[in-house]
C-alpha cells in the first residue's frame, strides 16, 4: 500500500492547476482505463483516474467511484457539459498532453516518494 498524499502534490507534479474542482482531497492510488464498466468496478476511493474519455459519463463514474481526480491524457479535453457536470459535483479535472503511460509514471513517483 502506498501512503496517502494531498491532491495539490499531483497538481504540482503536473505543473498545472485543475480545470475545475478542489485540491484539498487525499490521493491513495491510481487507475488507468477507458471502459467505464471496468473503471466502475476497479477504481477505488482516492484514486487518480487517468483516461482518454472526455464525455459526460466520466463525471458520473468519477463521482460513483469517489476517485480523487480525473486526468484526461494525450491532450484530450472535456466536453463543455462534462466540465459543467464535473464542476457541479466537485470533481477535480485535469487535462494533460502526456501519454497515459507517462502520467501513470508521474503519479507513481509522487505516491512512492511519500511511502
Amino acid at each position: 500500500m502506498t501512503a496517502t498524499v494531498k491532491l495539490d502534490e499531483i497538481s504540482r507534479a503536473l505543473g498545472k492547476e485543475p480545470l475545475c474542482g478542489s485540491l484539498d482531497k487525499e490521493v491513495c492510488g491510481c487507475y488507468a482505463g477507458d471502459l467505464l464498466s471496468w473503471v466502475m468496478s476497479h477504481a477505488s476511493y482516492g484514486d487518480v483516474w487517468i483516461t482518454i474519455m472526455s464525455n459526460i459519463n466520466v463525471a458520473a463514474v468519477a463521482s460513483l467511484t469517489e476517485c480523487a481526480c480525473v486526468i484526461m491524457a494525450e491532450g484530450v479535453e472535456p466536453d463543455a457539459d462534462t466540465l459543467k457536470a464535473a464542476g457541479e459535483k466537485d470533481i477535480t479535472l485535469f487535462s494533460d498532453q502526456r501519454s497515459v503511460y507517462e502520467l501513470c509514471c508521474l503519479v507513481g513517483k509522487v505516491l512512492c516518494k511519500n511511502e
Partner: protein
Amino acid sequence: MPDDVVRFCFDVDGDDFSSAGAASVEVKKRLRQLGISPEVIRRVAIAMYEGEINMVIHADGGKALVEVTPDEVRMTLEDHGPGIADVELAMQEGYSTARENIRSLGFGAGMGLPNMKKYTDTMHIDTEVGRGTTVVMTVKI
C-alpha cells in the same frame, strides 16, 4: 407493510446520455445518509449503475426502485424495451449488442450483466422479447 422499509424511486431517461448515472449517484448519497457501510454502498452503486446504463442504451429508459430494509438493499429495474432473447448469452462476459457510437462513449464492454451478478447477493432477470425486462438485485447489509 412494515415501515422500516425506505424506498426511493427514479425515472431513468432513455434518450438522455448526459444524465445517465444520475439515479445511481443519488442512491449512493441516500444510502450514505442512512449509515450503510461503504462496502455495501460500493456494490450497490456498481450494480445500480450498470443496470441504469443498460436501460438507457438498450431499452430507451425505464424505472428504478430501491428499497432498503434492515437486512438488505433491493434494486428493481424495470423497462419496456426490446427484452433479451437469450439471457444466458447476454450474461457472458464480453457479449454486447451495443453499436459503435455507444462504444465510443466507453460503454458496450459486455461487462454490465456479469458485474451486476458479481457484486450482488441475488439477481433475477425477468424478460420477454417485445415486452421488456425487469431485473431484481439484492445486496445483504
